[in-house]
C-alpha cells in the first residue's frame, strides 16, 4: 500500500498523526496505572497521590501478589499448555479433511461446527456441570472432571474445536489440490498424505491456533468459575478473588493483574503477527 504521500497536504498528515497519538496515550493510561500503583508502598496509597509516580519504589506488593497468585498461575499452565496442544491436533485433522478430503455434506457439517463458535457458553453450562459430576461418580475419580483441571481442559478442547477447525481449514484451502491429487495417484492414503504433504507446511497455522487457544484458555473466567474448585482455580479466578477482597490494597491488586497478564502479553509482543491472524480468523471470512 503506497501512501499517496505528496498529494496530501502536510497539515492534514499532522492532524491524523496527532489524533492517533492522542488515542495511543489514552489506550496506555490503564498500563500506566497498573505499573505505577503496583510499585507504590502502602504509605503512598492515599487518593491525593493516585496519579503520581511512587516516591519510593518497592516490589513488596509484587512479592505478596506472587505468593497469592502462584498456585493459580501453575494451574493455568497445566490447563493452557495441554489444552492448546490437543486443540491443535483436533483442529488440524478436521481442517485437513474438510478442505482436502471432503465427504458429502461436509459444508453443512462445517456450518454446524461454526455455530459452536458463537454459542454463549452459558447455554451449555448447567448440563456440562451435571455431566462432569456424573463422570466423577462413574469413574470414581473425585475432583478430576468436575472440580479439576482435566474437566476444564476437556471443556476448552471441545468448545475450541470450531475455531481451530476453521483456522486450519482456511489455511489448508491454500494448498494446491494438485499436490493432494498427485499424492493420491501415488497411492498414498488419507493419513500418509496428511503426514508427508500437509503437516510439513502447517507450521504457521499451528502457531496461530496455539496462540489463539493459549490466550483464550489463559484468560477464560466463565468455564473456570463454573467447573473448578479452590484446588484447581486458574489464574483468572484467583485474581478475581484477590481483587474482590476488600482488604487487598490496590498495589497488590495491580501487581497481581500484571502477573496474570504477563504470559499472554509476552506472546502478543513476540508473536503479534500470528496473534493477529488468529483474530482475523475469528472474523470468519478468511
Amino acid at each position, binding site marked *: *500500500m*503506497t*501512501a499517496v504521500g505528496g498529494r496530501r497536504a502536510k497539515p492534514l498528515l499532522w492532524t491524523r498523526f496527532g*489524533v*492517533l497519538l492522542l488515542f*495511543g496515550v489514552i489506550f496506555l493510561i*490503564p498500563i500506566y*496505572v497498573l505499573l505505577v500503583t503496583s510499585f507504590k508502598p502502602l504509605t503512598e496509597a492515599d*487518593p*491525593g497521590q493516585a*496519579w503520581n509516580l511512587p516516591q519510593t519504589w518497592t516490589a513488596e506488593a509484587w512479592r505478596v501478589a506472587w505468593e497469592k497468585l502462584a498456585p493459580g498461575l501453575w494451574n493455568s499452565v497445566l490447563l493452557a499448555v495441554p489444552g492448546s496442544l490437543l486443540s491443535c491436533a*483436533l483442529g488440524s*485433522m*478436521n481442517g485437513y*479433511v*474438510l478442505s482436502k*478430503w*471432503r*465427504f*458429502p455434506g461436509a459444508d453443512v457439517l*462445517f*456450518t454446524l*461446527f461454526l*455455530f459452536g463458535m*458463537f*454459542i*454463549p457458553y*452459558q*447455554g*451449555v*453450562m*448447567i*448440563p456440562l456441570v451435571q455431566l462432569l459430576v456424573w463422570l466423577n461418580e462413574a469413574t470414581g475419580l473425585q475432583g478430576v472432571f468436575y472440580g479439576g483441571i482435566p474437566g476444564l481442559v476437556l471443556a476448552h478442547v471441545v468448545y475450541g*474445536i470450531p475455531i481451530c477447525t476453521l483456522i486450519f481449514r*482456511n489455511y489448508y*484451502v491454500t494448498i*494446491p489440490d494438485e499436490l493432494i491429487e498427485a499424492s493420491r495417484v501415488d497411492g498414498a492414503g488419507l*493419513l500418509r498424505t496428511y503426514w508427508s504433504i500437509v503437516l510439513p507446511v502447517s507450521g504457521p497455522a499451528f502457531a496461530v491456533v496455539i496462540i489463539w487457544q493459549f490466550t483464550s484458555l*489463559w*484468560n477464560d*473466567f466463565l468455564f473456570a*468459575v*463454573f467447573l473448578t474448585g479452590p484446588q484447581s482455580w486458574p*489464574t*483468572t479466578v484467583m*485474581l478475581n478473588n484477590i*481483587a474482590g477482597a476488600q482488604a487487598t490494597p490496590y498495589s497488590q*491488586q*495491580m501487581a*497481581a493483574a500484571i502477573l496474570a*497478564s504477563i504470559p*499472554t502479553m509476552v506472546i502478543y509482543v513476540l508473536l503479534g*503477527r500470528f496473534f*493477529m491472524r488468529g*483474530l482475523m*480468523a475469528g*472474523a*470468519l*471470512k*478468511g
Partner: protein
Amino acid sequence: MRRARTWLPGLLLVTPSIVAIGVFVYGMLGWNFQLAMTDKHDQVSEGQFVGLQNFIDIWDQPRWHLSVNHTIVFTVVFVLGALLLGWLLAFLMEKGIKGEGTFRAIYLFPMAISFVATGIVWRWLMNSGTGERAVGLNRLFDWLGLPQWQWFRDQDWGMAAMALPAIWQMSGYVMALFLAGFRGVPEELREAARVDGCTEWGVYRHVVLPMLRPVTLSALIILGHISLKVFDLIVAVSGKQIITDVPAVFMWVAVFDSNDPAKGATIASYIVVSVAIFVIPYLIWSVRAERRTVRPESGSLRGQRGPSERDHEQERRS
C-alpha cells in the same frame, strides 16, 4: 462404491469431533432447554414438565427487567463505541502513517489481556469517589476541570460506563478488521473513480464504503455476541451488584446462590436465543457467500504472508 471408499476415511477421522460437537454443543443446548421447561427449582426435586412457564414467569421479576435493560444499554454503547472508534483509527491509518506498526501494537494489546485483569484496572479508574476521596478518572477530571461522575454506579448510565473498558479492549480489533478492509480496496478502483472526476470524499463514499460492508457486518456480529453474553468484565468490575446486573451474572447467581437450576437454564436459554437470532442468518449467509466465490485455483503456499490473511483474501476476490 469406489467414491465412498475415497471419502469414508476422511469422515472417520472427523467422527470424534462430530460426536463431541453433537453431544457438547447441540445435545447440551437441548438438555439445557429441556431443563428450562421443568419446575426443578431446587437441587433435589425431579422436575415436572411445565412447558414455557419459566420463560413467562421470569418477566415478573424486577431483577430480570433490570438485567435486560442493562444489556441493551451496554450493547448499544459498546457496539457503537467500538465500531466508531475502530473505524476512526483505521481511517486515520489507512493511507499509511509514520509509526503505524507501533500504533497498531498499542491499540491491539488490550485484546491479549483477560477481562478480569481489565476489570481490575478499570474499577480503579472508574471509582465513584468524588472530591477529596476521588481516585482514578475522577481525580484526573478534577485536575482538568471536568465534572466528576458516578461511573458504573450511576443509576441510569452505569452500564454505559461499564462499556468503556470493553471498548478499550475491543476497538483495536475492529481497527484491524477495518484496516484490512480498507486495504482490500484495489488502488486501481480508486484511481479510476478519481479519473472519472470523483472528489476524495466521493471516492470514499461510492468506492470504499460499499466494499467495507462485509467487514462491518463481521465486526457487528462479533461485538454483538460478546456483548449479549458479557460476564467476566461485569464480575471483575462490580461483582454481583444489582446495579450492573446482566443476564449472565443473574444466571450465575441463580445456579450457585439460589440453587435454582430451572431458572438458571431459563436465563441461559434466553441468552442463547438472543445470540442465535442474528448469528444463524449470518453464518448461513457467509457460508453461501463463500461458496459463490470461486476458490483460488492454486493459491501458492507462502510461508510469509502479509499482516493479515484477509488482505490477501480480499485481493484475490477483487
